[in-house]
């Protein structure tokens, strides 16, 4: 299963980005192959609609779970109808590698 994590940088040591729509990078982690892919967020500088555009991006990568610090109001219902699970982690000090470790419990 693929899991998307919002990240502030493009390395596994980067910290979790607490915003979903305007995060710096998305990390798409595949729990089966344990592979990681860093995608720079093209919607970072959008004036509006960054959240829904990012939902499109995540959905097109086939992720079934999204981990971020916070999700906007427009985004929640979109993810619900796409059957993508949301995980809110209110810990901006967590590193991407630590989250992946948690996922491999």
């Amino acid at each position, binding site marked *: 299963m693929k899991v998307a994590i919002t990240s502030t940088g493009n390395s596994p040591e980067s910290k979790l980005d607490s915003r979903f729509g305007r995060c710096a990078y998305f990390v798409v982690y595949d729990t089966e192959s344990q592979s990681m892919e860093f995608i720079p967020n093209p919607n970072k500088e959008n004036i509006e609609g960054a959240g829904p555009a990012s939902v499109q991006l995540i959905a097109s990568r086939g992720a079934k779970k999204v981990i971020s610090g916070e999700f906007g109001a427009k985004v929640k219902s979109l993810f619900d109808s796409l*059957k993508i699970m949301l995980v809110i982690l*209110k810990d901006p000090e967590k590193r991407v590698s630590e989250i992946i470790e948690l996922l491999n419990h």
Partner: protein
Amino acid sequence: MPRPKRIRRMNNPPHFKGYRPIGLPEENNPVVINYEEYEAIRLSDYELNGHVEAARIMGISRPTYTRIYESARRKVAEAFVKGRAIVFEGGKVYFDSEWYACNQCGCFFNHLEKEQEIVQCTLCGSADIEQYRNNPEFGPADDVCICPSCGKEKKHVPGIPCRNETCPDCNGPMTRKGVSHRLGMGN
């Protein structure tokens, strides 16, 4: 301009598109039941909620709920009697899911497959999770009796009609808060 419709909260949409009568040639004039009507039938006739409770779950007023439910039943009846197909389509709804909090890693996550019971945290795998309610609006109905003359409120005791309760201040009969006294009855 009429007041815009409130967006109705609902669980999962039905996982199929509709119904077709057996033994009739296919016709293309189906009855369209929208998602909020489907949800009303599900809440009232499948989960057996009262209208007040169901309206609370959908985030709409009780009269609006009753109107949606009435319309849903009429459509189902029409389809049955006339042998028309039913399709689920449209409606002013948003899909909502239940949220859980993990006490181990401190994360919150939502649960999409409501039929399956959730036993562990999706992130760290801990079993120390609990359902998270950030919306106290959807809690159990809190009924209050109110005195129509002096406005004194008192907690409603289930089983005792409010009109049989007497106001401790002016000894008059009480009424249910938010129902008849809001309609201005007695004027």
